[in-house]
């Protein structure tokens, strides 16, 4: 039985029996605390909160956070508002750009925005402003932050051969945003209510409240997601690229290229730390695709692909 159903059942029970001794608020709070603790590495003996295990990182101890009742809806159903999502994404993007600047090539950046925006339109998500950037590093990677921020590194861009491959890579990142993968990680691993406390505060520069939520700098980009989130982004992203009219084999071709790189190449060390091996991604994608794309005839547009100077 899902948590949502359980809570709904509890709500129904509580409203129909107002004199019940059942303490709904306490019940919900306990549920939330247990959910938040679930992510700790050692899942043993959750019934003894007094023996607080040593935290590896400087992360706050969720069990000690007092749950703000007004935040329960968010905590239980996991929905950040659009404004919160964009605030979080903007802070992550600004931090990432603090680590690596954009390539100083306006024609390149514009080209990637034109392709990326077209692919993103096929996702059905039109409530965010989609922004795409090429990062000036030889590392081979791509990043997505909530609220429509997508980045690809110059090192990865250099490996691409045509527009369909670019569309495939961007489709994967767009899918992370439409599937809200990073927000789910934040929801699971960080204290709740932080954003609510500063609702309405609008920061021009760095947003300290959001920074507290996401940890140091852009480290959330280095932590990576669950491997199933990566497989899902491959599955969803390849469909976005296909819907945009591209050859759907763009993303698989890039994964093939990555699989052929030597494992000791330090341009891919972070990529391999945060993603399943490309061979595993190809195999998982193969299971999902099967014969689905046999009749598709997309374009690869190698002729208008923007080559790096």
């Amino acid at each position, binding site marked *: 039985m899902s948590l949502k159903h359980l809570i709904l059942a509890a709500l129904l029970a509580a409203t129909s029996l107002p004199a019940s001794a059942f303490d709904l608020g306490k019940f919900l709070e306990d549920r939330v605390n247990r959910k938040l603790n679930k992510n700790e590495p050692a899942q043993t003996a959750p019934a003894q909160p007094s023996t607080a295990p040593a935290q590896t990182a400087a992360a706050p101890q969720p069990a000690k956070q007092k749950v703000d009742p007004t935040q329960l809806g968010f905590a239980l159903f996991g929905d950040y508002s659009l404004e919160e999502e964009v605030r979080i994404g903007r802070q992550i993007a600004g931090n990432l750009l603090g680590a690596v600047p954009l390539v100083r090539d306006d024609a390149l950046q514009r080209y990637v925005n034109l392709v990326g925006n077209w692919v993103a339109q096929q996702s059905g998500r039109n409530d965010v402003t989609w922004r795409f950037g090429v990062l000036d590093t030889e590392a081979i990677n791509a990043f997505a932050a909530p609220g429509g921020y997508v980045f690809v590194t110059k090192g990865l861009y250099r490996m691409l051969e045509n527009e369909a491959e670019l569309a495939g890579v961007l489709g994967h990142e767009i899918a992370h945003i439409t599937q809200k993968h990073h927000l789910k990680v934040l929801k699971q691993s960080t204290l709740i209510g932080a954003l609510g406390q500063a609702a309405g505060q609008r920061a021009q520069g760095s947003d300290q409240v959001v920074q507290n939520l996401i940890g140091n700098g852009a480290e959330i980009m280095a932590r990576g997601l669950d491997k199933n989130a990566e497989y899902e982004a491959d599955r969803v992203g390849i*469909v976005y690229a296909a819907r945009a009219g591209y050859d759907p084999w763009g993303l698989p071709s890039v994964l093939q*290229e990555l699989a052929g790189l030597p494992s000791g190449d330090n341009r891919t060390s972070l990529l391999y*730390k945060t993603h399943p091996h490309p061979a595993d991604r190809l195999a998982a994608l193969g299971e999902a695709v099967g014969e689905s794309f046999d009749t598709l005839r997309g374009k690869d547009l190698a002729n208008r692909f923007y080559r790096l100077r």
Partner: protein
Amino acid sequence: MRKILTATLMVLGWGVASAVSAATGTVLRDEKLYTQPSATASVAGSVARGANVTILSREGGWLRVTSGRTTGWVRLLSVRAGSGGLGGAGIGDVVGAATTRSDPTRVVAVAGLRGLSDEQLKQAQFNADELARLEAQSVTTGQASGFASQSGLAALKVQGLPKPRAEQQASPWGEN
């Protein structure tokens, strides 16, 4: 020893993309080899999971490969480039050796280039100027769809792919 041989750097000039010179691949699942790049073509043979193949060319979602004495077409997603076997970790090459790229027509550039470390990301400070630069470069949906149609791209109806059975339980809230 064969690994070392295949890992020898292949120096090959630019060629036609579809006429790729021989590269090695590993078969990811038991598959048929077809005489044409189509599942309705006749079957030329089969390849077993883990087998090494030589990749000759690509057409759409198909690769033309040679396995032993048989040559035929196999689905692109059933093969990974490189000869290191099926596993995810530590595959693909001999330590320190130059690498065989899956497509030697592409530029080979490997050694000495720095990656992006988690420490760099952790230490990163918010850069408002770069963010403003990024935001200034975003385009409208109209501009993007105009650019798409210039090259004849049109939106297609394509169904979403099913979630594999192994992942169905993976909801973050779903274990209750």
